[in-house]
């Protein structure tokens, strides 16, 4: 009896160690794709990221060389358009939730924002196609920017709300007690205090939509040349990567890898920047 209990105890301990081991292996498997993708991006892409890549337009079909400068600039233009739509709406909406809304309204709006976040990005492409492209008879940078901007709204709204709620009530009370009006208190005291967190949320949202391809397929459409007007189709880095990846040409595959490396580097830089911004905060906001 005594022996049996001791055995049982050892067995339970072994089982516990075993379970920890399995969980550890699972964690390794989860992060393995990150390492593998990064490794292959470096191996296949690093050799093709050169001066030409950042300065030249895509070469004509069949010709070797060329770069993606138009796609890089196009992506930045699209992000600017998206920001112009997504940032004001998201930030002010988040401020409403944190400062004004009643508990019931807030829970409904929060719920809908989270549901919106789960809607596939391709759906936004279809919707904007119907709203803008069909109506104005053509693919355009405006349509692409709108699609990305709409995706940003719920993301920014939720992060803004959270960081604004973190501002201590004493700040508001102090300002109000000095006779500052409510809206000035919110803009100059509350939002200013939370500005780091708000900017963090905006940067994360930009990094997220900067890598989106699906909503741009039939809104921005892509362009092998410079875009001279925002009402014309425009190139974007993720779109160009997609087009090149599914093409039959080796030289294009090479450039797709290079583009992917540049895009991933950009996205990771933003994430690192965010980490630096939020460093030292005990409760990470995002």
């Amino acid at each position, binding site marked *: 009896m005594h022996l049996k209990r001791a055995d049982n105890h050892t067995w339970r301990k072994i089982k516990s160690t075993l*379970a920890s081991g399995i969980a550890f292996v699972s964690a390794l498997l989860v992060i393995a794709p990150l390492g593998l993708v990064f490794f292959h991006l470096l191996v296949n892409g690093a050799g093709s990221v050169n001066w030409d890549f950042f300065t030249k337009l895509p070469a004509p079909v069949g010709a070797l060389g060329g770069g993606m400068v138009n796609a890089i600039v196009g992506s930045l233009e699209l992000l600017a358009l998206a920001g112009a739509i997504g940032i004001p709406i998201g930030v002010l909406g988040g*401020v409403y939730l944190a400062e004004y809304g009643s508990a019931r309204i807030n829970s409904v*709006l929060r719920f809908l924002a989270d549901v919106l976040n789960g809607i596939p990005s391709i759906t936004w*492409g279809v919707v904007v196609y*119907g709203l803008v492209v069909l109506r104005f008879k053509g693919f355009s940078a405006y349509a692409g920017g709108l699609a990305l901007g709409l995706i940003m709204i719920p993301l920014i709204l939720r992060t803004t709300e959270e960081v604004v709620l973190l501002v201590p009530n004493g700040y508001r009370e102090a300002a109000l007690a000095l006779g500052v009006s*409510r809206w000035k208190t919110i803009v100059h005291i509350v939002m200013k205090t939370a500005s780091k967190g708000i900017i963090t949320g905006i940067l994360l949202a930009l990094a997220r939509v900067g890598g989106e391809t699906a909503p741009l397929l039939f809104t921005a459409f892509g362009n092998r040349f410079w875009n001279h007007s925002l009402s014309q189709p425009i190139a974007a880095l993720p779109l160009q990567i997609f087009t090149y990846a599914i093409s039959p040409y080796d030289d294009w595959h090479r450039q797709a890898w290079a583009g992917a490396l540049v895009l991933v580097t950009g996205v990771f830089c933003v994430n690192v920047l965010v980490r630096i911004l939020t460093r030292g905060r005990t409760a990470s906001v995002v």
Partner: protein
Amino acid sequence: MYRSGLPLLTKVLSFMAVAASIAMEERSVQARMASPSRFGDKAFEWLTLAMALAVVVLIILIGWQLWIGSSVAIKKFGFHFLLTSTWDPVAEQFGALPFIYGTLVSSLIALLIAVPLSIATAAYLTELAPLWIRQPLVSLIEMLAAIPSVILGLWGIFVMIPWLRDYPFPFLKRFLGWTPFFSGPIYGPCMFAGGIIIAVMILPIITSVSREILRSVPDLQREAAYALGATRWEATRIAVLSYAKKGLFGAVILGLGRALGETMAVTMVIGNTPQIAASLFKPGYTLASVIANEFTEATTDIYLQALFEIGLVLFGITILVNLLAQLLLRTIATTSATRAVQ
């Protein structure tokens, strides 16, 4: 008793009167102080309210636009659209069944792979791992979540598929080839590859939401288990995992929502052939990828309408799944769990 009743009543009444007068005074003071900028206050409140209502407007807008865009197709095909499997744009025959099938099967494969791994990782991160390893691991998982879908697709085409075709697929075929799921020739791009790439896409989200859920389990649960002599794993299993069952289910459903709508990476590896085949080695097609591939090629109005209807079906499925996920996550009353969703 009765004699002391009256003075008490007068006392209460006088107290109420004083309170009321104080309240009145306070209000008038407030009004006086607020009056110079009351317009600014109201305007700002209404402005922010209008922006917050954007989320309501957007959901209605999506539904309305998809409905308008597909109204002719809905009238023309009715329920046959969902139940037939011929997709022939030239003959104007449109049936979405192969895409619905492909979406469900690829997502199911993804969940079968991702759920055990994610929940085990979440348990590792909150319960089992040494403290110093936790934060770096969490950061790495966040970085995986930040990789754009198109880049994962690129990696899928040129690295994952050749590897799968050379090593695991022949192995699976040798040992499980007698089942219909792993029979037939191995092409490379196929339903199984699509499922695997979706699994990679949803691993980070299921892991981070599950982690938040496990973190919200009260420490009392763990302490009770340890006090009864449980080992670390027993405490995790009995006191933590089973306590958080509902929330973990919510995390899985949330992952399912993402899996159903995953577009670029799947489009690049699934093979894009509208067919319903038992073998996972055969190419498939999903709702999202048919939109991605054929939208710009839709030359006739009815073709475009059919694609809009595919979009409507996808929207319908994902919104239901997401509603369910949010309801499950919300009932466990953690603000942190919904935070991890993004």
